[in-house]
Structure formats: structure tokens, C-alpha cells
């Protein structure tokens, strides 16, 4: 069994009118089947309302399937007894860093998860220190979260999740509210955790650049998985991506335009270096 297995997942949101009468439902996820390898870095791309956030919430049982099954680390999300196991194993980071910090002091916030799963006090101090070290925030241990920048707050959020020792990191547009340097910091940390600790990462984003370094890219539209492959495969299908209202990274787009004009370039160029090399080798 893979670390995450999704079988024919359907999710419907109920729609209510002003008198709170149910008038129908909207299908946010339509027959999604997907399995993720342990230790992989998966990026989910998609336009607003394509169902990518809904998918993420299914992966740690914040939402339950209308139909179908979701298995996280071998536990079915519909088993009520396993719900805390699943949430412990699959930590989630949200978009707004302010709205996910609970503690009034950094270390207390990092300890919030372990406190909830009942880690004894002596072990907790060690876990907090470890988690803060991994995100490079030990120096801010006793600060108030209000004094930190957005990127730093998001790193505290990651530390709070790491302190629960999860196997999977789910991130729902974690960089959408950050400045460029904060974005870089957060992504570097996540990549490092993926490489060094072998953690499985599911990153939901609409920044194409963040998908370039992934092992696997999944494109969603209208609640369905439309494309699935390595970044190189996905970004060589520029026409199709544009169809789903997605843009490609700038360099890829340039290469694609050049190719359309008759320049002989390979498909799926992802980085500046690759483009430079390909252009130079033309002569």
C-alpha cells in the first residue's frame, strides 16, 4: 500500500438557500483516484475552485468523502477511531500564517500539537527544540508570534507540525500571502525536509515556479485530475495547460514561443540554464 491512496473519491458540498433549505449540491471532487509514493514531492496545480483545497482537506480527514475511500498511512479517513492517528501522520499548513498560530509564545505554539496528542512534558521540550531547529527559528523561541514576519510565522507553523512527527506534509497554498524572500525560505525548508528526512510532501499552489523542482505534478480542473506526470512532461504540454487557465514558468513559455516560431528547441525546458544551453547548442 502506498502512503496515500485515494479511490474514486467524490465530494459534494451542499448548497443552502436563505432559509437554510437544502437546494442542491456542488460536486467539488469528481471520481478522483490517486496514490502517492512515500517520500515523494508532489505539487498539485489548478485554477481557483478546481477542487485542490478540498482534496487536501480529505488527506487529513478535515473533510470526509461523499463517496469513495481515502487511506492515509494505511488508515481509512472514515474510521472515527483513526482520525487522530491520521491527523498526527499528515500535518497540514494553511494559507494564512496568522490564522493557524494558537500560542501566545512561539514555543507554546509549537507545543500545541504534541500537547493535544498527549506527549509527556520531558519529551515535549526535546521535540519543540528539534522542530524549531529544523526550521531555523530557535532564536525566536520565546518571542511573541505577533513580532514575526509572514515567512517566519509560516516557519513556526511548519515547526508546530513537525513537532507531531508526521510522515506527510500537506500544504495548502502556504506561500500565497508571503513576500518573495519568505516564500523562498519556506520552500527551501520543505525541500530539505523532503530530501533529508524523507517526508512526503503534497504542495498545493498556483505558482508554477514552485512545481519545477517537484517529483510529480498533478493538474486539476473541475474537480478532476487532468494531467499527472513529471514537471518536464507536464510543462511540455503548454497548450493543454493554457486550456486549464494555467500559465507555465516564464522560461518554459519563452522556449515554447521560440519553438513555435521555428527555433529548434527540445520540449519542456524548465530552467534558465537549460534554455541557455539549448540555445547555445543551436550554433
Amino acid at each position: 500500500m502506498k502512503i496515500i491512496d485515494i479511490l474514486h473519491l467524490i465530494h459534494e458540498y451542499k448548497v443552502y438557500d436563505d432559509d437554510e433549505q437544502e437546494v442542491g449540491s456542488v460536486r467539488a471532487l469528481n471520481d478522483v483516484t490517486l496514490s502517492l509514493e512515500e517520500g515523494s514531492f508532489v505539487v498539485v496545480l489548478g485554477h481557483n475552485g478546481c477542487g485542490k483545497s478540498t482534496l487536501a482537506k480529505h488527506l487529513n480527514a478535515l473533510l470526509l468523502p461523499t463517496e469513495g475511500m481515502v487511506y492515509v498511512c494505511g488508515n481509512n479517513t472514515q474510521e472515527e477511531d483513526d482520525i487522530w492517528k491520521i491527523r498526527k501522520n499528515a500535518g497540514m499548513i494553511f494559507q494564512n500564517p496568522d490564522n493557524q498560530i494558537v500560542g501566545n509564545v512561539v514555543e507554546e505554539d509549537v507545543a500545541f500539537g504534541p500537547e493535544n496528542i498527549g506527549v509527556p512534558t520531558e519529551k515535549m521540550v526535546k521535540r519543540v527544540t528539534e522542530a524549531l531547529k529544523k526550521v531555523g527559528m530557535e532564536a525566536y523561541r520565546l518571542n511573541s508570534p505577533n513580532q514575526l514576519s509572514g515567512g517566519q510565522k509560516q516557519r513556526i507553523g511548519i515547526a508546530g507540525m513537525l513537532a507531531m512527527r508526521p510522515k506527510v506534509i500537506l500544504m495548502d497554498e502556504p506561500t500565497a500571502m508571503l513576500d518573495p524572500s519568505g516564500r523562498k525560505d519556506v520552500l527551501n525548508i520543505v525541500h530539505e525536509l523532503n530530501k533529508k528526512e524523507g517526508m512526503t510532501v503534497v504542495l498545493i499552489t498556483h505558482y508554477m515556479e514552485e512545481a519545477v523542482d517537484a517529483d510529480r505534478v498533478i493538474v486539476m480542473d473541475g474537480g478532476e485530475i487532468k494531467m499527472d506526470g513529471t514537471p518536464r512532461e507536464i510543462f511540455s504540454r503548454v497548450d493543454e495547460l493554457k486550456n486549464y487557465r494555467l500559465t507555465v514558468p516564464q522560461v518554459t513559455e519563452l522556449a515554447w514561443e521560440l519553438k513555435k516560431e521555428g527555433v529548434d528547441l527540445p520540449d519542456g525546458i524548465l530552467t534558465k540554464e537549460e534554455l541557455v544551453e539549448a540555445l547555445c547548442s543551436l550554433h
Partner: protein
Amino acid sequence: MIRDITLGQYYSVDSVIHKLDPRVKLVFTILYIVSLYVGSGVWCYVYAAAFLGLVIILSKVPVKFMVKGLRSILFLLVLSACFNLFLVDGNVLVKFWIIRITDNGLRTASKMVIRMVFLIMGSSLMTLTTTPNDLTDGLEKGLGFLKVIRVPVHEIGMMMSIALRFIPILIEEVNKIMKAQMARGADFETGGLIKKAKAMVPLLIPLFISAFRRASDLALAMEARCYHGGEGCTKLHPLQYHTRDYVAYVILILYLVSMILLGKLLG
């Protein structure tokens, strides 16, 4: 900067009183208030004043801060003093037009004022020497026995600590909304009380909407981090009694007992 504002009136200094367990200070506040009502002779008040003075000196909080707390209840103080002074019956001491002051009135008025002043100073000592976080912890743990009668102590503690965390964020938000509305011609400055109150509506509605949105985000984030109420929780820094806390308890009990005795002997 607005994000650095200190909440409550915590006065940061290193003292014995600051180091005491918040539960001890909670008990101190309650017992001290009780002690003000068990004895009612001049000597009882002198004793209570001496005890409070000693604690204030130990706490190293300047008396200035204590007096500041009194300023807010000055009106109440004067009002209740006046009522007692002019309306209580007894042997008339001074009579002028319709105003008359009796010996009983004078006695109850001064008793009232002294009690209120001590009461406020005694309880503000607690908020001055305890950080809001400790205070929440102390309330949660110290009032834990109320769980038996189904008071949601843990939930109240959680609410207090979340409120503390979000106050600076919401203040910042108010400023942002205010500027946004001002940029579109809203006027918060001029006009009478009613006009000013009306001007608050376009400020409050977006603020409430955003607060609710934050609350729902936070609830989701807390659930994602395995929050399921207070049961089975451990603490990073559990409250623990030290020797000094036990000593403080003994002193407190001695104080209360001696106050009762003093009241009995003189009364």
C-alpha cells in the same frame, strides 16, 4: 508599533511575587478580599494595609501603578462615599441646608472607601505581577474543581488565550479598515456622539466578518493539529508548586486566621 503593545497591565520585574505560582496569587486575591470583610475595626484595616504594603514592597511594583488602577474607579468611589455620607441615619454632626452628616454615615463611608481601595489594589497586584498567559493557565488549573459542576474551565481558558493572541491582530485590522474607509471618504472624527457612533458601522461590519473568517480558519487549523478539547492533553510548561508557593499559602492562612482573631478581639 501597535503589534508590540503589552496587554493587561503586567509590570515586568523580577520579584518573589512575580515568581509565585499564579494559583497562589489567585487564592491571595480571594482571601485578601475575604479578610477585608471579616474584621472591621480600625486596627483590622491597619493590619490589612500593613499586609498589602508588605506584599507591594516584595513585588517591587511602584505604588504609582497601583494608584493608576484606582483612577478608573474614582467616580464609583466618590459616588458611594457620598451616598453613605449623606443618607445614613445617626447622630448628626454637621448640618447645613439639606445636607447633614452623621457619625454613622461618616463611619460607613470611610469603611466603604477603605475596603474598595484595598480591594482594587489587592486584585490589581495579581494582574500586575502575572503575565496574561500565566493568568490563563492559573485560572484553568486553579478553577479546575469547577469542572465537577460542569463549568467548561478548559474552554474558557482556551478562549481567553486565543483572545489574547488575536487582540493585536484585530487592532491592526481596525487600523487597516479605518484607513481604507477614510480613503473612500468616511469621516470618523467630526460630529456629535450619535454621528460618531453611526460612523463606526462601516468599521465594525468588515471587522466582524473578518473576525469570523479568522475564527473559522483557526478552528480548522486547530483541528488539523489534533485539538479535541482538554482531555488527555499534556502541557509544555505544567504549573508546578515550589517551596515558596507552599510558604506563601501558609502565610496567607496565618494572615486570614489572625485577621479573624483580631476582628473577634476588638469587635
